[in-house]
């Protein structure tokens, strides 16, 4: 078992690209190795050691590597990008692209995350106790597939376009979601406990469940009566009819 503890050394205003903060990169590495790993602050190439204090206990493979981050990381991007295993526990807020393209392992955040968390995620788990910004579990610009697998849970709310182009996996938002969740979906499951607007536009496949109110319904769904899911009765819709969609939208 390897535990890496990271704390910010100073206040950071210009975002730092720190895809090296990942169990895959830290596994088996010493404090010195990690301190000298590359990070970018704007156009300035720097090291993790310049920005953070790092403490390493034990050594192990990625699956047995735990990264504990304590402090304000709201200007640190790409944490856990592409990770395949291990654990990242963040006490604080983080910047964009948290866990983008991750395929395994788990990331938990006590604070808020900025846009594109879980972008193109393939597997593993992302737990966000605060709020998520735009494009949670979405894709990259122009790409036809966003999240393909894994699970994202947000205890707070999420902004617009969550789960855009989702092809698989699951997103649960305990609070509200912004407009157009599940846009152009082709699989996967989205559960929104709170309110949202215009869900499921252009959805070809997949499931969206809204337990709060839907502010505006897209005029592209066929009403299919009511159906009980986990003991709760929903109005059931299928669509988007424009794309001959087989998606299912449940609204309480």
């Amino acid at each position, binding site marked *: 078992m390897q535990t890496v503890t990271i704390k910010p050394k100073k206040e950071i205003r210009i975002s730092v690209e720190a895809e090296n903060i990942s169990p895959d990169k830290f596994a088996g590495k010493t404090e010195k190795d990690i301190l000298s790993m590359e990070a970018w602050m704007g156009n300035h190439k720097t090291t993790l050691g310049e920005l953070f204090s790092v403490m390493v206990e034990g050594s192990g493979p990625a699956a047995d590597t735990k990264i504990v981050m304590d402090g304000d990381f709201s200007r640190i991007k790409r944490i856990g990008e592409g990770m395949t295993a291990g654990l990242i526990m963040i006490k604080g807020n983080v910047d964009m692209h948290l866990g983008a393209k991750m395929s395994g392992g788990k990331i938990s955040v006590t604070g808020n995350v900025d846009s594109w968390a879980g972008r193109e995620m393939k597997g593993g788990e992302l737990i966000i106790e605060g709020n998520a910004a735009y494009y949670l579990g979405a894709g*990259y*610009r*122009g*790409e036809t597939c966003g999240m393909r697998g894994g699970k994202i849970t947000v205890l707070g709310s999420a902004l617009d376009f969550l789960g855009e182009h989702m092809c698989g996996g699951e997103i649960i938002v305990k609070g509200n979601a912004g407009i157009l969740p599940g846009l152009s979906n082709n699989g996967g499951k989205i559960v929104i406990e709170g309110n949202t607007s215009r869900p499921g536009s252009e959805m070809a496949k997949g499931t969206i469940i809204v337990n709060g109110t839907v502010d505006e319904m897209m005029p592209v769904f066929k009403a299919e009566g009511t159906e009980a899911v986990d003991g709760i009765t929903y109005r059931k819709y299928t669509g988007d009819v424009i*794309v001959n969609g087989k998606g299912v939208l449940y609204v309480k």
Partner: protein
Amino acid sequence: MELLIKNGAVYDPFNGIAGDKTDISIKDGKIVDKVSSSASVIDAGGRLVMSGGVDAHSHIAGAKVNVGRIMRPEDTRSGIKPRTKITRPYTGYTVPNVYAMGYRYAQMGYTTVFEAAQAIMKARHTHEELEEIPIIDKGALTLFGSNWPTMDYVREKNMDKLAAYVAWGLLASRGFGIKCVNPGGGEMWGFGKNVTGLDDVVPNFDVTPAQIIVSLMKANEMLGLPHSVHLHCNNLGKPGNYKTTLASMELAKQVKPSKDRQVLHVTHITFNCWGGTNWGDFESKADEIANYLNNSENVTTDMGQLIFGSATTMTADGPVQYANAKLLHAKWANGDVELEDASGVVPIFYARQVSIHAIMWAMGLELALLTKDPYKVLLTTDHPNGGPFVNYPEVIALLMSNKKRQEEIKTLHEAVHKRTKIPGIERELDFNDIAIMTRAGSAKVLGLLDTKGHLGVGADADISIYDIKPDQIDPSVEHAKIKSAFQSAAYTIKGGEVVVKDGQITATPMGRTFWVDATVPEEQTEIMMKDIRMKFKNYYSISLANYMVQDAYVTHPKVVKAGVIPVEVS
């Protein structure tokens, strides 16, 4: 500047050299008889030496290419390399940025590449991009197949005016030759329709595709253009289209070549040798095309080889692109040009387990392997339609190794066994064949054999050296080595300057842009211009004064003279 390349195993088919240890002398960017003792020396050490690669059909610059980039940031983000002291950043795979375009070709040992389609009205854009592509020499073919003046003159059977229009259009676009895409179809796509065969009549213009093709071939030979008419056949993308392709080739018999070359180049056969009547009975008829080529003398082709993975289809064939977009549920860009032609761009992913893609993969290879004379089939992927040009080494390896083909076939949809002949074809091409398909043949088809595609005295000193010792390798078995050697040249020399060493860019000189200045008797041009002026006054949305590509966009021109009055090539 003098340079001597010693101890190369030289393959120069045009000059009848096939692997002989020959020295090559270079002075002032040209190949010469001999150089002084102060020349710098490259010891090829028995490695493979060929003239620089020549690509006669690729989509490297212009409106459609840029639309591809704009609509595909997901493509652009692949293949990214940061800038270095010598190179600007590289981006993209199927639609690379201008820098990657030049660098990657040079890294493969290619030094001359022709953009296969530009509308005259958008030629300024093509040249803006060509001006930014480093290292390689280039040029662009100009679309004439659906232009209103073309169709008017074909209907009126006025060959003088047609020739004058072609000459003027080449000047206006700084174009190198006549490209003809789905003739007549471009106009019909203006109202969302298409022609379905060579003898359909184009409404309002009262001409047929067959008439357009034949007339353009005649005009081409009247003008004595270096290249022949370059045809993208009607019905492309439709099962059963091989019949249209054969019928189009048959039209070539009506015209005599003005030079020692074909009168018709039928491009990217992978997309128009389709048998069957629908997607269910879809099959390869590449063998029929090869059979035709084996029994005729005035038609050449190129493969348009399919490469599995991501591709971006882009063509002036507007209707086929809409059909593609619908079939694939893919994003679709359309770019029709008033009075001239159509165009469309659609991304595609070719998958091994999709029967149609597996069959298409076989088509290009069948064509190349069943056609006896390699001068009749150029190696292309119709970049980026069949796949990006960086895959040429893969195609070379496939052509040189039956073993590799059989290994590939095992990974493909079973349709490749029943609907193609590829599993049973044992022929393996040699370095001489490859040198023809990628150099001498392309230069001959383009009409550039005076300076390109060979290593004889007087040729441009465009040379590639590959890390292969031809006498020590069995390409059939060591196909992986063949592929990696062709991917990254040991040396690429462009105009006498080393631009690539060990696969890395070492210098980025600007190449030249070839265009054809064809002379027509002035009176003929003047009569024709009356019609053109009328069309600008009434129909074009820009002024005639702002139409022609200005000199500012062709800063390194290489003008090839042609014309009704015979003028010697400069």
